[in-house]
């Protein structure tokens, strides 16, 4: 399972490095969305760092939706799916590999957006760095969840619009826990409850993915 996971993750990341969709499309979209969120708040509130964590996670959430679609699109045509299916890869390994690749991509994008939040939303740099571990775990949980929901919606009618409908409610607790832990890092406050939510969510998605990804890939 681990061997297959590393193989699949390396493949997805190599494709990403080659195609540069993340660099030229997703990251600019995220930065633009962050700027627009500041514009929506208006000049009096845009520089208010208390809005920073929530806006950061809201933008990251929309970026994650794009990347989940991209992760599934890599498997592309029915022909590719058929060829890869005949390799008989361990589905749990495929799930872990795709989640890992998606997590790495989200972490990279998240770091760029964090820098954006510090610059344009005046989020305190020190607080942002303290929040970094919780941000990485939150984005990791989003990756695991997103890989599962991406597989659930792949290939169906209107899959691009169906994905947000199914995924956003599942992302809600991650959004809350992520925002709360980021705010606690900025302004002080108890963190442990939010770490519990994140840890439980991550463990639950990993467990369901390892057990059931194969069912989603059955013919």
């Amino acid at each position, binding site marked *: 399972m681990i061997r297959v996971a590393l193989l699949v993750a390396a493949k997805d990341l190599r494709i990403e490095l080659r195609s540069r969709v993340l660099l030229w499309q997703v990251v600019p979209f995220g930065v633009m969305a962050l700027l627009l969120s500041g514009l929506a708040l208006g000049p009096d509130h845009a520089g208010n760092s208390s809005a920073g964590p929530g806006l950061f996670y809201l933008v990251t959430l929309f970026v994650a939706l794009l990347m989940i679609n991209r992760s599934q699109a890599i498997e592309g045509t029915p022909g590719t799916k058929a060829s890869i299916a005949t390799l008989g890869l361990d589905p749990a390994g495929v799930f872990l590999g795709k989640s890992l690749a998606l997590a790495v991509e989200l972490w990279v994008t998240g770091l760029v957006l964090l820098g954006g939040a510090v610059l344009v939303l005046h989020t305190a740099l020190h607080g942002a760095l303290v929040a970094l571990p919780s941000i990485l775990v939150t984005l990791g949980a989003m990756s695991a*969840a997103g890989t*599962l*929901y991406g597989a*659930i*919606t792949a290939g*169906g*009618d*209107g*899959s691009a619009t*169906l994905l947000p*409908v*199914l995924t*956003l*409610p*599942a992302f*809600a*607790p991650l959004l*809350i*826990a992520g925002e*709360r832990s980021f705010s606690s890092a900025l302004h002080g406050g108890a963190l442990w*409850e*939010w770490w519990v*939510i994140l840890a*439980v*969510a991550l463990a*639950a*998605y990993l467990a*369901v993915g390892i057990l*059931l990804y194969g*069912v*989603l890939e*059955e013919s």
Partner: protein
Amino acid sequence: MMKQLSQRLLGPVTLVLLALTFWLGLWITPPDKIQGNLVRLLYVHPAVAWVALYVSFGTATIASALYLWKRTRSFVVDRIAYCAMEVSVVFIGLTLITGSIWGRPTWGVWWAWDARLTSTAILGVLALGYLALRRANDDPALRARRSAVFAILSAINVPIIHFSVQWWKTLHQGATVFTSTRTLLVHGSMAWTLLISFLGFTLLFFWLLRARYRLEVQRETMTSATLDEALASRRSEGAF
């Protein structure tokens, strides 16, 4: 024979219990010392919420799990999951509506970012998502598999959503019927009416589920030719 009898009695017993609930709730039970007549929503809202969150969503989840397990996999359990989730949407909607009706005079607003309201609303979106997913796939086996996995994921999300939102903010009152040590807080005719309402709405769910299931079977029968007809038609393409 017992099965047929219970199926025949389900509808009438449900109607009787609901009628009793409304009669007792509206006319017989006294108003509350503080809430006045607003308390009469107590005989509808908690029961509807109980059915929405546990009975209907729970039925859909269990049926989905049975579908995923090869030994119990069949389109019967898939249909049960689908129909139960549809009925869930109705009950979740009723939960939010009755809650809002109670909340407006109590909190002064139709909607508040309260833990239970928010988590129930998210559950409603999950249920609608399930129905949207059903429509996105024509292939019955693929549709059943994906819906089942989504239902399991949603069920896992329910406690996560519940606790995250509860820790985030809560305005909704705590336990209304039992304390944490199982001491009953409601007494006399109110307690009996509450019990009857829970029974009535629970049976209403199973009555609606059965009706919806029958409708779904009829719909599938009408829209698909029998296998023999389909094979005959297909083979005739190859006739020389």
